[in-house]
């Protein structure tokens, strides 16, 4: 098989997954044509800083949605955890890490609370989290006494606004950033190579060496270009490191671990999962605890980014996170979806918001466009499924 035929085969076989990549690439190209500043180093850095917390929420939300639930409370949990952290750091004057710990503990408690009602009492996640949305928003107001707390300042502020920059110097760009990206690309290439070797050892068919090399080079080029752009701006955002670690860990957990597989089994067919020895309640409990944890991480990142805790923080975040999952190919009935897809879905939302802001599109139109994109993405997904079913 020559390279082009191989590439075409790869694309058609994975249209469902690749469709969303193409859409993303198309949107990026569109905005970069419409506005030359769009791909500038400064703006790329901004996109990451502005939307990292949505992506963090989308990771947890994806697992909830795959299991067949929904969580409407995450926006309120972001606010509550940020508020608790602000009280600890600003009002009580404790060090920054105490604020982070307090936020994470609150997030875990919130997750356990919701997980208990969903898993052990059997109330649908929609209801539990609708209640939670009110509950935790109200608690945020209580904790903050209805006023904003600011500024965090210091190290806490650096979590979402800091950069690792200048560690190794460089003329006009940060060598350290480029080095980190280079290590990431090498790590990617090595893990892909090992996976390929593993497949060969099991006598599975693998893509040809040129195809394999092309894939690595393409991915590597895009990543390195992105790294180079960041290096020209302010360097490597700390929050990008947090995000990258979370994405890698949760991709592994969902795709490679027994726990992750059980989430898909529960979402795909709860009864069959139960009769296959899956402890369904335990799975449901832990994915909500996990959601609470990730919501608190997002809460820390968001309060740090704002350098303040506000009573109305995180409003509507849940909808962005849910939209990211569905644009990224998750099924509304559960059982289907990937962390990678949700990340692309979240980036599509991020890129569109940012691109339209750069062009000065009014907020009202932005909302209309985002709503339409969500609708069309899911419509495309359904159309694609029907096409696949008809091809049988």
């Amino acid at each position, binding site marked *: 098989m020559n390279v082009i035929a191989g590439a075409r085969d790869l694309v058609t076989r994975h249209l469902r997954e690749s469709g969303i990549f193409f859409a993303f690439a198309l949107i990026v190209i569109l905005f970069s044509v419409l506005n030359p500043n769009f791909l500038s180093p400064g703006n790329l850095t901004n996109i990451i800083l502005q939307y990292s917390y949505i992506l963090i929420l989308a990771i947890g939300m994806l697992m909830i949605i795959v299991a067949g639930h929904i969580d409407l409370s995450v926006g309120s949990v972001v606010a509550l955890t940020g508020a608790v952290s602000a009280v600890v750091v600003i009002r009580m004057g404790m060090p920054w890490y105490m604020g982070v710990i307090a936020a994470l503990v609150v997030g875990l408690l919130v997750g356990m609370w919701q997980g208990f009602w969903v898993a052990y009492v059997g109330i649908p996640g929609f209801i539990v989290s609708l209640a939670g949305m009110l509950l935790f928003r109200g608690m945020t107001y209580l904790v903050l006494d209805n006023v904003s707390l600011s500024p965090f300042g210091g190290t806490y502020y650096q979590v979402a606004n800091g950069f690792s920059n200048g560690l190794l110097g460089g003329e006009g760009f940060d060598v350290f950033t480029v080095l980190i990206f280079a290590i990431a690309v090498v790590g990617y290439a090595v893990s892909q190579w090992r996976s390929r070797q*593993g*497949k060969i*050892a*099991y006598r*599975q068919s693998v893509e040809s060496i040129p195809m394999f090399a092309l894939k690595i080079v393409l991915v590597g080029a895009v990543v390195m270009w992105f790294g180079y752009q960041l290096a020209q701006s302010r360097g490597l955002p700390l929050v990008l490191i947090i995000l990258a670690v979370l994405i890698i860990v949760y991709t592994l957990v969902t795709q*490679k*671990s*027994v*726990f992750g*597989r*059980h989430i*898909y*089994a529960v*979402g*795909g*067919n709860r*009864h*069959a*999962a*139960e*009769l*296959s*020895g*899956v*402890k369904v309640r335990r799975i449901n409990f832990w994915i909500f605890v996990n959601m609470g944890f990730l919501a608190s991480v997002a809460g820390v990142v968001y309060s740090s980014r704002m350098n303040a805790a506000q009573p109305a923080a995180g409003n509507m975040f849940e909808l962005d996170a849910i939209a990211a999952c569905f644009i990224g190919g998750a*099924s509304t009935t559960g*059982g*289907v979806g990937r962390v990678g897809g949700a990340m692309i879905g979240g980036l599509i939302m991020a890129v569109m918001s940012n691109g339209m802001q750069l062009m000065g599109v009014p907020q009202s139109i932005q909302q209309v466009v985002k709503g339409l994109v969500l609708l069309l993405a899911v419509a495309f997904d359904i159309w694609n499924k029907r096409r696949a079913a*008809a*091809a*049988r």
Partner: protein
Amino acid sequence: MSTILEMRSITKEFPGVKALAGVDLEVTEREIHAICGENGAGKSTLMKVLSGVYPHGTYTGDIVFEDETMDFGSINDSEDRGIVIIHQELALVPYLSVAENIFLGNETRNRFGMIDWDSANHRAAELLARVGLHENPTTPVAQLGVGKQQLIEIAKALSKKVKLLILDEPTAALNDTDSAHLLGLLRNLRDEGITCIIISHKLNEIADIADRTTIIRDGQTIETIDMADPSSTQDRIIRGMVGRDLENRYPDRTPDIGDEVLRVEDWHVDHPTQAGRNIITGASFHVRAGEVVGIAGLMGAGRTELAMSIFGRSYGRNIRGRIFKNGKQIQVRDVAEAIGHHLAYATEDRKQYGLNLLADIRHNVSSAGLGKLSPGGWINGNEELKVAEEYRASLNIKTPNVLANVGKLSGGNQQKVVLSKWLYTDPDVLILDEPTRGIDVGAKYEIYTIINKMVAAGKAVIVISSELPELMGISDRVYTLAFGRITGEVPVAEATQERLMELMTLERDQPLPTKETNS
């Protein structure tokens, strides 16, 4: 008698697949016409063409109904002409009443555009009387059993002035009494002038009721036979369906029975929600290595409930009794423990309880034995693929690829995936609940062969089935279950359908026959 329906060289293609390749069907007025064929032969596709589910233009060929060429654009068009199809999966709304269901989509309105419920309920009662169902039309459908729901579907069809009634596997989910009632009703309807097309896998049922039978194989009509003709035997139908002689419907096996593997003593189970209602009462049975034990019982006897309550208390509450594995008493408190004790239970309802239809074959095969693939909680994906491939080959799952979705497989192949899943857990005891339900003749034979391989490997197999010939064909010993009690234990050599049926219908207050054999 005149021809009411003629379908001429119907061809229907899906991308890449020719589902129907020139089928001819000719149905005479006032007859019961059976259509036989293996799963995937094209029966359901043909009926969807006829009823307008696949609209005119998506197929080639002609449909002539009452001497007019039809071009149905939708199911409403065919219903307007009096062609009504009742699907295998009943299309009733559980929380609506009987009358509401009967007139759903077809409501009669008074001059204010509102539904006149008094007249609707009255007309529903008339229709119910016609189908021999004595229920209040205001009863919610969910409170009625499957057999009665089937009758409501027919009443619904009658309300639409049906001339040609199509039934897809109408008795698949019914017990013998309900089946007999339904078949009797079809005869009455025929005598009243309604023509019926019935799709069924149950050949004795077809022999019993059909006037003529059309056999379809690979999207083509093989032949139409007159059932009054003495040469129209079940063997002839099977030959037509599978395209070869099926010498023996049950593969031979020489029993090689070893030690007792599982013994259940004095097993009691109560209903999960209705307090105090006993579902299983004092059941005791055992099974030995290399033995196939059948459990015969009518629907509602508690067969599935017995199996599921043993399998990690998956059914019922207040479960009492003792389970012994290899002579030692064991605790089986949840499914994980059951799997740990090397028990396996393949459910009667593959789609609802057996498979994750969204996942591929590979993930379904590994779903119960995932621990074996996952040292430290991380799945070895390559090993998983290898395992799935091995079962695909050894159980002959017909698919180009184990990465294909399970939802797209035929019933027989889905069942093989379920069996693969349980075989991968290394079970000593397999409980197979209706292992051949909804599976065509050829695949049934394959499933029996797989069961034989299991026992040859020293496993103990318990088969629950409502088909007595099947139980007698594959078991070594048969227990009968009636109203939650084990009413008898019969070595297969002494078993006759009459004898088993007698034991299966023993009521709760009747004394058990004295046990004459204890093998």
